[in-house]
C-alpha cells in the first residue's frame, strides 16, 4: 500500500513537472529550428525588414504589423460592444432575458472558429466588397469585425463575472439611496470591478492575436505593410499556415519559426501582465 | 504523566502564520471524563482540538511550539511532531464538527466508510460494526429501514448522531466535539447530550462549547480560553 501510494504521488509530480518542462521545450525547439535565420541577419533585421524572398529578405515586420493592427482593431470594436452586453446581463436586461443572453454567449464559445470564418466569407465579405471597402472585400476591417464577434464571448463572460463579484451589499446600498441601475453601475460597480474588466480585455487581446483561421480566411494575406484598414494584410499566424507548404530547408520556411517565437513571447508577456493586473486591488470609492 | 492522564500538554503554543493563537497552554485531560473548553468565538478553541487529532498538519501555515502528548493503547504519541503519520492516530481520536458533515453517500456507507479506509473488507463484520455503532447513538431503530438513503436527507439531529456513530465505528479512545449542538434545536441537543454522558463509559471526551449551562450539565473539568491562554475554572 505505501509503495502504491508513493508511486502514485510520484506520477502526479511527474505529470505536472513534465507538462511544464514541455512548455519550455516548445520554446527551445522553435529557437533551435529558427537558428539559421538569426545567424543570417540578426534579430533586428528579422523583426524590422520587409518580406521579399526574391531579394533574400525574410523579415516578418509586415506580419507583425498585420497581426497587431487586426488584433487591436478587433479589441477596439469588441470592447464597448462586450461591455454593453455584460451590462445587459448584470443590470439593464429584463430578468428573464439576462439568463438567456448569458446562455447564448456561452453557446457562442462552442461555435468552431472555422464556422465563423466560413459564414463571414460568404456573407460579410460580399457585403464589405459591395458597400464599404470595395476591392476584394478581404481586408483588415473585415477580419477585425469577425474577430470582434469571435472574442466577444470571452470578454463578456469575464466582464459579467467581475461585475457580479462586487458585493451585493454595496449594490443594495445604492438601490436603497434611490440610485438608478445605471448610476449604481457607474459610481459603485465599475470602479470596483475594473481590474476584472482589464483582465477580460487582455484575454480578448490574446485570443485575437492567437487566432489563425479568421485572419487566414478574411484578411487577404498580402505581404506588404498595410497602411489603411481597407487594405489586405497577413498575420503571423496566417503566415505560419501559408508558408508550411514550402521546402523545409529554405529561409522562407525558417521565417515561420521566427513568427512562432514572436507569438510565444507575446503570449508569455501577456500572461505576466495578466498576473500583475490580478494583483491590483480595486480602487476605494 | 499519570496513568489516568489521557492528554497532556506543556507550554504549548499554536501559530497561524505569524499570528499566535494559543500561548503557553499546559493542561491535563483525564481518561473517561468529559473535559469542556469554553471561551469567546475565535479564541482558539478549535485550534486546540486540531492539535489533538493532528489536523493542524493539514492547515497551511500552522506550526507548534512546546509539548503535547496523547496516550493511546498504553503508548504515548507526540502530537507536535509533524513527520509522524496521522492516520492511525485519527482512527483512535474521532472528531465531530459543529455542522453535521455526512459524506454525500448513503447512511450505511457513511458509517462503514472509516472501516473501508482502514482496509477492512469483511462484509459481515462491517455490517455488525455499523449496526452496533448506530445502536450506541440510538439511531438504529430510526434508520434501519433507510440504510440505502442519502444521509443528507436525515434531520439535523439525526445527521449529527450519524456523524458520532461514524466516529464510534472505529472504537476510538478519544472523541473531540466542536460545538456539536450549536447547529441543532433544543430537543435534538438534549438527545446528543444524553448520548455524550453515556459515551463517557468508554471514551475520553473533549467538548468545545460556549453554552455554559451545557458545560455545567456535562463536564467533569472545564477550561476557559481567553486571549490565547487556557485556564481551569
Amino acid at each position, binding site marked *: 500500500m505505501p509503495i502504491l*501510494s508513493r508511486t502514485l504521488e510520484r506520477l502526479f509530480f*511527474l505529470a*505536472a*513537472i*513534465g*507538462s*511544464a518542462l*514541455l512548455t*519550455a521545450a516548445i520554446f527551445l*525547439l*522553435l529557437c533551435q*529550428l529558427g537558428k539559421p535565420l538569426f545567424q543570417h541577419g540578426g534579430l533586428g533585421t528579422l523583426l524590422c525588414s520587409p518580406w521579399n524572398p526574391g531579394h533574400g529578405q525574410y523579415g516578418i515586420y509586415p506580419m507583425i504589423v498585420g497581426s497587431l493592427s487586426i488584433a487591436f482593431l478587433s479589441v477596439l470594436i469588441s470592447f464597448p460592444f462586450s461591455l*454593453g*452586453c455584460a*451590462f*445587459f*446581463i448584470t443590470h*439593464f436586461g429584463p430578468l428573464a432575458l439576462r439568463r438567456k*443572453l448569458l446562455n*447564448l454567449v*456561452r*453557446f457562442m464559445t*462552442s*461555435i*468552431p*472558429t*472555422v*464556422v465563423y470564418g*466560413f*459564414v463571414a466569407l*460568404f*456573407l460579410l465579405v460580399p457585403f464589405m466588397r459591395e458597400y464599404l471597402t470595395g476591392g476584394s472585400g478581404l481586408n483588415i476591417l473585415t477580419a477585425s469585425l469577425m474577430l470582434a464577434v469571435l472574442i466577444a464571448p470571452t470578454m463578456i463572460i469575464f466582464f459579467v463575472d467581475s461585475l457580479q463579484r462586487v458585493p451585493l451589499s454595496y449594490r443594495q446600498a445604492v438601490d436603497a439611496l434611490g440610485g*438608478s441601475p*445605471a448610476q449604481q453601475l457607474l*459610481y459603485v460597480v465599475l470602479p470596483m470591478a475594473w481590474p476584472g474588466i482589464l483582465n477580460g480585455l487582455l484575454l480578448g487581446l*490574446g485570443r485575437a*492575436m*492567437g487566432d489563425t483561421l479568421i485572419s487566414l*480566411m478574411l484578411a487577404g494575406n498580402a505581404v506588404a505593410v498595410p497602411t489603411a484598414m481597407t487594405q489586405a494584410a497577413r498575420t503571423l*499566424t496566417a503566415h*505560419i*499556415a501559408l508558408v*508550411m507548404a514550402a521546402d523545409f530547408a529554405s529561409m522562407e520556411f525558417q521565417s515561420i*519559426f521566427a513568427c*512562432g517565437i514572436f507569438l*510565444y513571447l507575446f*503570449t*508569455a508577456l501577456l500572461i505576466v501582465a495578466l*498576473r500583475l493586473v490580478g494583483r491590483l486591488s480595486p480602487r476605494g470609492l | 504523566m499519570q496513568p489516568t492522564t489521557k492528554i497532556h500538554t506543556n507550554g504549548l503554543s499554536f501559530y497561524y502564520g505569524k499570528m499566535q493563537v494559543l500561548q503557553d497552554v499546559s493542561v491535563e485531560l483525564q481518561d473517561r471524563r468529559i473535559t469542556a473548553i469554553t471561551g469567546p468565538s475565535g479564541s482558539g478553541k478549535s485550534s486546540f482540538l486540531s492539535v489533538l487529532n493532528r*489536523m493542524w498538519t*493539514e492547515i497551511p501555515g500552522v506550526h507548534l511550539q512546546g509539548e503535547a502528548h496523547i496516550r493511546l493503547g498504553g503508548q504515548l504519541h507526540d502530537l507536535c511532531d509533524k513527520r509522524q503519520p496521522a*492516520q492511525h492516530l485519527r482512527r483512535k481520536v474521532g472528531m465531530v464538527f459543529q455542522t453535521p458533515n455526512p*459524506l*454525500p453517500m*448513503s447512511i450505511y456507507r457513511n458509517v462503514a*466508510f472509516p472501516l473501508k*479506509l482502514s482496509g477492512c473488507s469483511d462484509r459481515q463484520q462491517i455490517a455488525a460494526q455499523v449496526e452496533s455503532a448506530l445502536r450506541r447513538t440510538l439511531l438504529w431503530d430510526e434508520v434501519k429501514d433507510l440504510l440505502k438513503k*442519502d444521509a443528507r436527507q436525515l434531520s439535523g439531529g439525526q445527521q449529527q448522531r450519524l456523524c458520532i456513530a*461514524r466516529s464510534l465505528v*472505529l472504537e476510538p479512545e478519544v472523541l473531540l466535539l466542536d460545538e456539536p449542538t450549536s447547529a441543532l434545536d433544543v430537543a435534538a441537543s438534549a438527545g446528543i447530550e444524553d448520548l455524550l454522558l453515556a459515551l463517557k463509559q468508554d471514551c475520553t471526551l473533549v467538548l468545545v462549547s460556549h453554552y455554559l449551562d451545557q458545560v455545567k450539565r456535562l463536564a467533569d473539568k472545564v477550561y476557559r480560553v481567553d486571549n490565547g491562554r487556557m485556564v481551569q475554572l
Partner: protein
Amino acid sequence: MGRLLARLLPGFSWCCALALTAAVATLVWFLLRGGLPAFNADLLFGGTRAIDALLLRRQVFDGLFPALFGTVAMVLLAVSLAVPVGVAAGIYMAEYAGGWSKHLLSLVFDVLAGIPSIVIGLSGFALAIVLHRSFDGRLGPCLLLSALALAFLVLPYLVRSTQTALEGVDPLLRHTALTLGASKLQNIFLVLLPNRLADLTGGIILAVGRCAEDTAVIMLTGVVASAGVPDSMLRQYEALPFYVYYMSSQYTGPEELQKGYAAAILLMIICSLLFVLAFMAQRRLKSWLLYR
C-alpha cells in the same frame, strides 16, 4: 457628463444585446439555408453503402464520412492521451504543490493555455522534423502527431479544471475523511474526486470540444483534403473543420459548396452537443453517480 452617460447607458446596452443575438441568429440561419438541402442519405456516405463504409470495407469518396471518422479518431486519441496527464497534474497542483513552485507552475500552465494553437501545431511539426533528422524514421505529419499536438493544446485546460474542481471542495468535507483516518490519497480518490466528478467530466467534455473544433493545429500536423479513412495512426487523414476550411476556398461548384455548408452545420452540431453535455454533466452527473 456622468448624468448623460447614465441616461444613454441602458439604451446602448440593449443595442449591444440585440446586435449579438442578431449576429448569432444570422450565422445559424445562413448556415442552415445553405446546407440543409445537402442533408440527405448521400451526405455522409456518397455512393457507398452505409454498412460497407461503417465496417470500413469500402472507402467513401464523395461523402463526409472519412472527415467525420478522422475527427472522431483524432479527438479520442488526443483526449485519451491528455486526460490522464492533465488530471494527474491537476491533482498535483491542487493537493501537493505549494509556495513558489505552485506559483511558477501555474504561470507556466497559463502561458501554455495562451499559446496560439498554430504555434502548438508548429511545434508538433518541428518535433516531426527533429525526429526525422535524428532517427531518419518516417514519422511525417500523421494522425498520431496531430493527436499528440492536440493533447498538448488541451492539457492546460484539463490541469486547470481539475485543480479548480479540487480546490473548490468545501473545507469541512475536505477534512471529514481525514479526521476519520483517511490517508491523503484515500481522501483524494474516495472523497474529493468523486465529489467533483461532475466538474471533472464537464472539463473533459469541453476539452473534447476544443479538440474537435481546432483547425490550426491539425493543418500543420497531418490533415489533408482527401485521404479516405486512415488504416493506421501513422497515416494522414481527413477532418471536418479542415474540410470546411478547404471547401471555403477550393470548391469547384455549387454542389461542393453546399457540402461545405453541410459540413459546417455538422461540426457545429457536434460542438454544441458536446457543450450542452458538459453543461448538463455539471448539474446532473453528481446525483446520478454518487447516490446509488
